[in-house]
């Protein structure tokens, strides 16, 4: 009895120690970023965790140097719009592929292959396509690129949710007289709603954090996103780490807030299909 209690205590200690180590591992960069946002340039060069003489000036200076709030707003707009674009295409596509058997063998492989390819190879074609469509340097243009870029992720996430719905449910709706679109909207969508929410969140996060396309396809303050804004703190010879940290930390807030509020759905979406 005593031995088992001791074992439990030891187990708890080990578990606690492991969790503490994990927490430090993941939280340290954020804590360091937060701390850096209050450091003077000298403090940054010292490399200490905590600033010797904390300053609040980095925040107003960062906002004066780069339009941080405008860029955050651009990022949010691009992320939300791209999430909508992704879902509008991915949900019917996944349903058609998985349930109706349309290109059942080719679509999953093509989407996976396209996601595995380095994004840089799509940059030049996308540049010309956006220019032709007169969507260059615009929020809808970048949202369209992000929306299409995230399609493979959305397809693979939604695939497990759609596959989990028994075929008889669709068939019952068809027998009841519902067409394929009606079945999708009245029966399938409500059943995979948690999956749609999780997929939307993941796509929004991916779009919000995207840098490569955002830096190449947007030039003006009206459309530049916060990830591009971060890079503007890097001068030719000097990087203003304090201001960069202040802008980064501010830029993290919206996405962390979304992730925090919807973490239950996020976890559900990422673990779907892993256990039965």
């Amino acid at each position: 009895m005593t031995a088992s209690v001791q074992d439990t205590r030891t187990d708890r200690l080990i578990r606690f120690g492991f969790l503490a180590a994990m927490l430090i591992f993941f939280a340290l960069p954020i804590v360091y970023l937060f701390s850096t946002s209050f450091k003077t340039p000298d403090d940054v060069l010292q490399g200490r965790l905590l600033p010797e003489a904390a300053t609040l000036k980095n925040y107003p200076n960062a906002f004066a140097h780069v339009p941080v709030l405008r860029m955050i707003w651009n990022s949010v707009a691009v992320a939300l719009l791209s999430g909508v674009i992704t879902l509008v295409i991915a949900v019917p596509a996944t349903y058609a592929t998985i349930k109706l058997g349309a290109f059942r063998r080719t679509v999953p492989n093509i989407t996976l292959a396209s996601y595995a390819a380095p994004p840089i190879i799509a940059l030049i074609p996308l540049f010309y396509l956006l220019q032709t469509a007169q969507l260059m340097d615009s929020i809808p243009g970048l949202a369209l690129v992000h929306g299409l870029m995230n399609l493979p992720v959305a397809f693979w996430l939604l695939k497990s949710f759609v596959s989990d719905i028994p075929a008889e449910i669709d068939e019952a709706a068809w027998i009841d007289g519902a067409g394929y679109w009606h079945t999708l909207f009245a029966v399938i969508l409500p059943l995979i709603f948690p999956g749609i929410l999780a997929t939307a969140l993941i796509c929004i996060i991916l779009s919000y954090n995207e840098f490569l396309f955002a830096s190449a396809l947007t030039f003006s303050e009206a459309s530049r996103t916060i990830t591009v804004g971060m890079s503007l703190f890097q001068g030719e010879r000097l990087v203003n780490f304090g201001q960069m940290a202040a802008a980064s930390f501010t830029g993290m807030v919206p996405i962390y807030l979304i992730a925090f509020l919807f973490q239950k759905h996020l976890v559900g979406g990422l673990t779907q299909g892993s256990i039965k």
Partner: protein
Amino acid sequence: MVSINIQNLEKHYGKVKALHGLNLEIDDGEFIVLVGPSGCGKSTLLRCVAGLNPISGGDILFDGTPVGHLPPQERDLSMVFQNYALYPHLTVAQNLAFGLKVRKTSAEEIEKRVKWAADILAITPYLDRRPRALSGGQRQRVAMGRAMVKHSNAFLFDEPLSNLDAQLRVQMRKEIRALQQRIGVTSIYVTHDQVEAMTMGDRIVVMKDGRIEQVGSPAELYTAPRTRFVAGFIGSPQMSFVTAQADGHQMTLSDGSVLTCATAAQGPVTLGIRPEHFLDNSSEANRLTLDVTNQQVVGTSTSYFATLGDGEIEVIRQGSDTERPATLALGIRPEHIMVFGKDDHRIAA
């Protein structure tokens, strides 16, 4: 309600033929049961009628109108699935109303029909519940209700009772049959359980390897099976088979014993005897003394297993016999011995 005519129906999956040119006529209001072992094509046939599986050849006619090319939405059928397939996010009332709403039926009519079905099926208290809050039997009733409210051309049942326990299955069997007779709707019912088939169908279609072996009433299939497969599949306990050498009406078994049959044949044959056809009366034409190898007491009756010729046969007798006898002295009437030729077809008397 419609009559259903299946003409030369074929279904292929790549190179595999699931249905081999089936022909079947189902009368308006008839309850027909498709029965056979797993993989015989009974569910495939049902799904072809439903339009859920596209057909590869032949056609299906409802009241003489070809529907083989129509999608399921346009066939106006009702179907009860093995796992009920209720919409989990809708209440019982919404489940029942779904098909009617799709057809843009008026709200008044929907309410009337949902109430009508719920009253008949005794599910009125559960109308506001979601399917997950119902028992298996209640879900089964909701699935039935969903089929009923539509007043459709025909009912299709795909092994609807196989997820229920034995007691509930017997009850639901009676309820479904009574309901079908009350509504008078043409029904096709798929099962692998021959007892279900025998107790429910006006006619039974026995299938094997994508072909129809025989179509007939339950009594017809029991008393006059055309093949050894049908004879073995229909009837519980199963018919016993032994091989014999025929010389007219005399059948010589491998152990030398001779049985007289009502059927005349020549050469190697298979004899089929139903366990319940053995008689205590030893004054019959065929007297047998069997060595009992095993015995099972099943409540009101006892099954004995004994060797006869080169096979093991089952004998069923009334009463619970707890002590196993070494031998059984029995008789069998010549007309109760069925004779099957080398092609497994029954040789007529």
